[in-house]
């Protein structure tokens, strides 16, 4: 018995050790980016990147904030797309999910198949690209960043599973009282489903905030570039920042601009709000994932 206890204590020690190492591995890349963003250009060229800056240097941030137009414009686009996309997406997905959840709806199976099939088969990139650019003429419009990903089948299924738990008697009695379906949905179903709706809202807004795919395909206009795409373009063109500089802060000249650190600083400024929001929101994501994993 004593041996057993000691054995389990040793194994518990190793389990904790594993998790601590894993957690460090999860965080270190972020620390590296933050550290580089605070390093001076001279230290970088002399010693390379380091996990702890030799001295805290704010040149990169001063430089970006002297020319904040690009960053602000990208923020504006990302915020608009996320807010509008989440509201519209929630509306169309929840109404469809509600219809799918109604036992009495006659075309329920057909509609479920109609949705489910899109998860198994897709037309591929090329017809999609040609449709959007040549026929819908959505290229270089703000709507191309919103409309194509409004309906996410997973989220519809998640919502439907939740709506199914609402007692049918409740809906029937409202119908007898003469309420219309639209009214039943907004007055009865929505208030009862706040947790599920909040979860899907979070999933959707994260997807919009992190999306780079639609902008990579369809955006070429400067003023429609969202954050992720801005970061992507800065990565592929090293001197992107330099060519866009109009105001150079004092103490810097064209030759010693903080290129290396500014890029990483831009990354931190772009993901900053998410980093702060993350600790508050992550538990809702975990809850949502667990709700969605119920087979239904």
């Amino acid at each position, binding site marked *: 018995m004593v041996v057993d206890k000691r054995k389990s204590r040793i194994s518990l020690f190793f389990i904790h050790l594993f998790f601590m190492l894993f957690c460090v591995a999860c965080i270190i890349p972020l620390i590296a980016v933050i550290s580089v963003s605070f390093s001076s250009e001279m230290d970088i060229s002399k010693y*390379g990147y380091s996990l702890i800056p030799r001295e805290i240097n704010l040149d990169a941030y001063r430089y970006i904030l002297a020319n904040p137009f690009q960053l602000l414009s990208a923020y504006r686009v990302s915020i608009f797309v996320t807010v509008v996309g989440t509201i519209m997406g929630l509306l169309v997905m929840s109404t469809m999910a509600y219809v799918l959840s109604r036992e009495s709806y006659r075309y329920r199976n057909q509609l479920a198949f109609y949705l489910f099939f899109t998860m198994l088969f897709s037309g591929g990139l090329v017809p999609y690209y040609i449709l959007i650019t040549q026929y819908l003429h959505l290229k270089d419009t703000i709507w191309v960043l919103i409309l194509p990903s409004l309906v996410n089948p997973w989220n519809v299924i998640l919502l439907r599973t939740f709506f199914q738990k609402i007692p049918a008697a409740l809906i029937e009695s409202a119908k007898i009282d003469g309420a219309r379906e639209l009214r039943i949905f907004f007055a009865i179903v929505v208030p009862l489903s706040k947790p599920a709706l909040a979860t899907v809202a979070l999933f959707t807004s994260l997807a919009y905030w992190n999306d780079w795919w639609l902008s990579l395909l369809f955006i070429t206009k400067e003023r429609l570039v969202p954050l992720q795409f801005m970061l992507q373009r800065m990565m592929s063109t090293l001197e992107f920042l330099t060519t866009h500089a109009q105001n150079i802060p004092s103490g810097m000249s064209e030759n010693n601009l903080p290129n290396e650190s500014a890029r990483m600083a831009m990354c931190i400024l772009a993901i900053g709000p998410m980093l702060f929001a993350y600790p508050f929101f992550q538990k809702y994501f975990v809850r949502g994932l667990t709700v969605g994993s119920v087979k239904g």
Partner: protein
Amino acid sequence: MRVLAISKKSNIQHKPVAKRFKHFRDNLELSLLALPAIILVFIFSYLPMFGVVIAFKDFRYDKGFFGSKWVGFKNFEFFFQSQDAWRITRNTIGLNAIFIVTGLIVSVSIALMLYEITNRFFVKTYQTIMIFPHFLSWVVVGYMFFAFFNVEHGLINGLLKMLGREVTNWYTEPAKWPAILTIANIWKSAGWNSVIYYAALMGIDQEYFEAATIDGASKFQVIKNITIPFLVPIMTILTILAIGGIFRADFGMFYYLTRESGPLFPTTDVIDTYVYRSLRTLGDIGMSSAVGLYQSVVGFVLVLVTNLIVRKIDPESALF
């Protein structure tokens, strides 16, 4: 007699139409409620499905979808005769297979180990940190990767220099990338996926464990005979879905982590990056649409076959 027969027949035909109309009318309100989503799905998912016929055409922008000439299987021949077909198919399936196996092992192990920890504070803290990478986009992860693998200033080469070892130009060494991408995949998704398994473990009735302890079962026996069997249904479902998607690569990962470095293509070029490149860089619509259709069809067949096999073995776990 004949007249009678006809009238009878028409009567039979007539009834369902009226009935159908009644059904339609009775369900109209709900149908209208679902209509916005139906239209969106039709436009952005179904129209491209009809559009796959582009693969059999010599598409030209000036002639459009309907005006372009039919060319049969020419686009496919061109692709399958090239060296690329085998390379990108092998990379896509090979790397995805590695991701599926390693991902499954690591995330189930994480869930099992997390289950051993009784202190809620530690469980929550570990979980919060481990799912953090899931919330980052591949673009941002690309930046983080660059901080490590950058040839001149990168942390890994810095470490190698410090140890007196030779530095590596990571973005021109294809042999190292299958391992790098496997680690990246685990880093980004294992913590998040383990949440599902952990939730399933939390649902196990404690009585099973008590009974096992009374019977004198060892820790290992308990895990093998009680804990893992509880996870098998979820593991099966998620694996079927993953195998169904084995022909589809995570574009963002392959595009942003490798920084589109040409020398890496032998091991990192997958169907999705190939299609994107032929469409956007080379502008070869015929070829890229043929490859896209090849991907969709084989992927679809794989889902059906996997599901069929699972249904034969264990009907409960099948998706449909």
